[in-house]
């Protein structure tokens, strides 16, 4: 009874993780950059979502516009920085990314943007209804998270495996030079990758904002590192791996807290799992050799 | 005086067998290791130099088993090597690259933490070595700025600085023009005459045939032929192996 309820809650928590990490794992797969500013895209998505929602009152429209804006924002980030740093040592784009994250978080916190305070995102379940069974219940919000996550994942799966674009990303993730040698327009391909990955980050921001009913400028602090734990656990760049890692992490965190309580904060537990796995299975759960 | 024995060495990468029961021995000569792509030549080098522990079999240097030693241990027995894809220390100067080779005896000791490496004595040694490989004029340039051919020579100089008894050269002539290859061959002969036992992997047939005293041919992880260059040139198995690849 309690077990199933815990499991269903963990599933939704996993969905929020999947959303945070899915875009990042795509971007990492192709660019191999520790894109910490991804968390800024997530925050921008949530912010745009809550703005549009408060103007128009329509959640789905808010979600779509938020994804569009964060997609464009992501491409701008790519074109303005990473584009020039592809061949630099790994620390260079990393520090640039940190710089962007610091800058955007600080700017977003200003009164003319998000301000210092948290904002409610009262979209509720966006018209969906709760599921109540004898064994467990999903609130309307949880149904919303689950549904949107599934839809987005199916969409991404189709794009990744059934379109030329998806195949070009796969090629680029194996070997960028080879990919361009076989006639892939690398720039367009990476920009499209960033657009989709960032749109997913925006969707994550919106959904987590709705789920916790709060949107604020520093909300990106959590995904700035949590999303990395997940994509490493999953084997960097592997989407199925990230999904599996999200599920495992959510279940471990949830059950550890439910059984023994907070020995350490959930994020530290996640990092411990990460370190142990790096020591004993350095390529991730589903990583390639 | 050195003798290297490879005894029934087999190695698997996952399900893929890279070496099958390879056995041969070599002492004080210029030995060529040839074979088509994917024959397992570099894997064998990695086994000998301690980068890979073979799944089965053993490697003996002067009668001492070395196949369980790490790379940084085999070098101290006098087994130096170069790499097929050159690995110069890109941010260091040519001089520093070679100096790094002089440190071999110090690295495992606590002395390394306080002994200064840039001594007059060491710098003189470096000067001689750079002259030997004709790199003196590049002494102070960063290794990354050298053209590939010079980087290969730099790697040889770096390996020589460790005072090796056996020198493993992985495709030393790759990417060199004829003139450069000729100079390289002279250098190798010269090293051999100074008592260094040389084993080299080579893709360039003519280069190998001219230089080597004996040749071992690998194909698909197995030794298919062994002998002096003249024998190998006319060995049917060898011809087939190369033709099959083409």
């Amino acid at each position, binding site marked *: 009874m*309690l077990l199933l*309820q*815990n499991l269903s*809650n963990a599933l939704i*928590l996993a969905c929020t993780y999947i959303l945070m990490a899915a875009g990042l794992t795509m971007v990492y797969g192709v660019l191999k950059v520790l894109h910490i500013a991804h968390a800024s895209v997530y925050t921008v998505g949530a912010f745009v979502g809550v703005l549009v929602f*408060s103007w128009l009152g329509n959640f789905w429209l808010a979600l779509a516009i938020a994804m569009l804006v964060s997609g464009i924002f992501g491409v*701008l980030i790519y*074109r*303005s*920085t990473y*584009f*020039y740093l592809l061949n630099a040592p790994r620390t260079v784009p990393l520090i640039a990314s940190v710089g962007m994250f610091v*800058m955007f978080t*600080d*700017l977003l*916190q*200003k*009164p*003319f943007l998000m*301000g*210092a*305070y*948290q904002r*409610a995102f*009262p979209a509720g379940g966006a018209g969906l209804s709760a599921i109540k069974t004898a064994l467990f219940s999903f*609130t309307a919000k949880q149904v919303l998270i689950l549904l949107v996550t599934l839809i987005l994942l199916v969409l991404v799966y189709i794009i990744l495996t059934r379109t030329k674009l998806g195949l070009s990303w796969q090629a680029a993730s194996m070997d960028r030079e080879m990919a361009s040698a076989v006639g892939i327009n690398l720039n367009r391909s990476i920009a499209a990758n960033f657009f989709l990955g960032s749109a997913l980050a925006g969707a994550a921001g919106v959904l987590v904002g709705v789920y*916790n*009913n*709060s949107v*604020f*400028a*520093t909300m990106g*602090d*959590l995904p700035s590192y949590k999303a990395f734990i997940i994509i490493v656990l999953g084997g960097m760049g592997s989407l199925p791996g990230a999904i599996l890692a999200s599920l495992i992490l959510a279940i471990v*965190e*949830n*059950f550890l*807290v*439910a059984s023994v*309580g*907070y020995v350490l*904060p*959930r*994020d530290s537990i996640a990092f411990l799992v990460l370190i142990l796995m790096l020591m004993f299975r350095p390529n991730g759960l589903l990583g390639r050799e | 005086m050195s003798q290297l024995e490879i005894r029934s060495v087999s190695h698997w990468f996952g399900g893929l067998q890279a070496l099958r029961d390879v056995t041969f021995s070599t002492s004080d000569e210029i030995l060529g290791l040839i074979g088509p792509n994917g024959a397992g030549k570099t894997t064998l080098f990695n086994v000998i130099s301690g980068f890979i522990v073979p799944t089965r079999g053993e490697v003996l240097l002067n009668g001492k088993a070395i196949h369980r030693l790490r790379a940084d241990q085999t070098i101290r027995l006098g087994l130096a090597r170069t790499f097929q894809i050159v690995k110069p220390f890109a941010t260091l100067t040519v001089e520093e690259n070679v100096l790094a080779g002089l440190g071999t005896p110090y690295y495992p000791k606590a002395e390394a933490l306080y002994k200064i490496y840039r001594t007059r004595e060491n710098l003189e040694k470096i000067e001689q070595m750079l002259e030997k490989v004709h790199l003196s004029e590049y002494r102070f340039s960063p290794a990354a700025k050298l053209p590939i051919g010079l980087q290969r020579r730099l790697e040889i100089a770096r390996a020589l600085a460790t005072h090796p008894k056996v020198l493993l050269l992985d495709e030393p002539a790759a990417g060199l023009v004829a003139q450069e290859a000729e100079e390289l061959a002279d250098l190798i002969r010269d090293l051999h005459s100074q008592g260094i036992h040389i084993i080299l992997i080579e893709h360039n047939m003519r280069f190998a045939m001219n230089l080597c005293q004996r040749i071992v041919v690998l194909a698909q992880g197995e030794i298919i032929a062994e002998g002096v260059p003249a024998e190998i040139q006319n060995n049917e198995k060898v011809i087939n192996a190369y033709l099959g690849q083409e």
Partner: protein
Amino acid sequence: MKRTLSVLFFALIILSFIVAGCAPQPTPAPAPEQPAQTEAPQVTEAPQATETPAAPEAPQATEAPAEEPAAPSGEPIKIGFFSPTTGFAAADGTSALQSAQLAVKIINERGGVLGRPLELVFYDDAAKPDQASAIARKLIEQDKVVAAISGSYSGATRAAAPIFQEAGIPMLAAYAIHPEITKTGDMIFRIGTLATTQGRVGAELVGNVMNLKKVAILTIDNDFGISLTEGFKQHAQEIGLEIVLEEKYPLGETEFRPIIGKIKASGAEVVYATGYYNEAANLVSQARDEGLEIPIIGQEGYDSPKFIELAGEAAEGVIITTDLNRDSERPMTRLFLEQYESTYGEKADMVGASAFDAVMVIAYAINTAGSTDPQAIAKAILELKNFEDVASGPFWYYTPEREVVRPISSQIVRGGAFHLYHEFTDEALVKP
């Protein structure tokens, strides 16, 4: 087009930065959005308008004359102020700063202090101790402040306190609750109620007001939560409460469902949950979602209109202990709540009230002492009695340990607003 795009991009950012820089700095124009969702009947009764000046009946209130105050003139009297207006703690830092600025404005409208205008010298410390210690020196040496207020968290406040102590400048910690802060020395005072005291009041509320017995305690993993729980458990033992579950959770936690399951299984009749409004909003919403209907008791960390905004319906019925009685008819409380909302377009919170009161206390002390001598100011604060000119008052008196003694109220959320639930005036209980 070598890097033109990137330059363009950053030019855009710098531009927005310049545009923003031109805007009057920390005080935003009243937010353009309509205050639609904030229901009007927030103020329950007593249309006590802003026009009423100071509290006339207060026995020892400021000498602020009831009639026309003369405009302050002369050299301004400087008070130092630091709070985090950037970084993760920006929400609290901004509330504190805005409230302190409001207090200064009100004081200057009433003729200032000793006939001179009051000036707030502000620096952002980003809630970092290294910044706070440098700022403390800057305030003392460069700005020559006569007193200072920390509108920051415990770590930063604790780092600044010894510097003020050594320089002999009084410092008031607005809402930082680490018990060690005031132990630094005789120049360091506190406005907020010590967390252990508030924890005791929490236990009293549960055991003797609500008459419940089985408690589950949730402790947020910082000095605030730990001190609260310590006080709560101490008094709980005295009055015979049964603690059926005790859990610690991290600051910023958003997922309380696993713990809620444990609370349900524990047979608790009430939850005493320490934390701040964002954790609390998630906690109560998730508790109600998961069907946990027992009362949830919070503290001043919840005391922000944001709590009600974020938790929505789930906030209904939540009871907190706090220094700020929003139903109070005391003029200064009304003045603060109303002016804050009309000036900043947001409703005031507890953190703001503490910073506001800190300015009020210093202004009073300077007036009473009749000088800006730091020693005299400190002495005047210690001797203050039944002080009414504060939002979270009245301040009965300061203990020799420089902690304030005053009634503590508990508030319940009803109809989307905090209302008085019970007032604790037993001196033995509310004295630290």
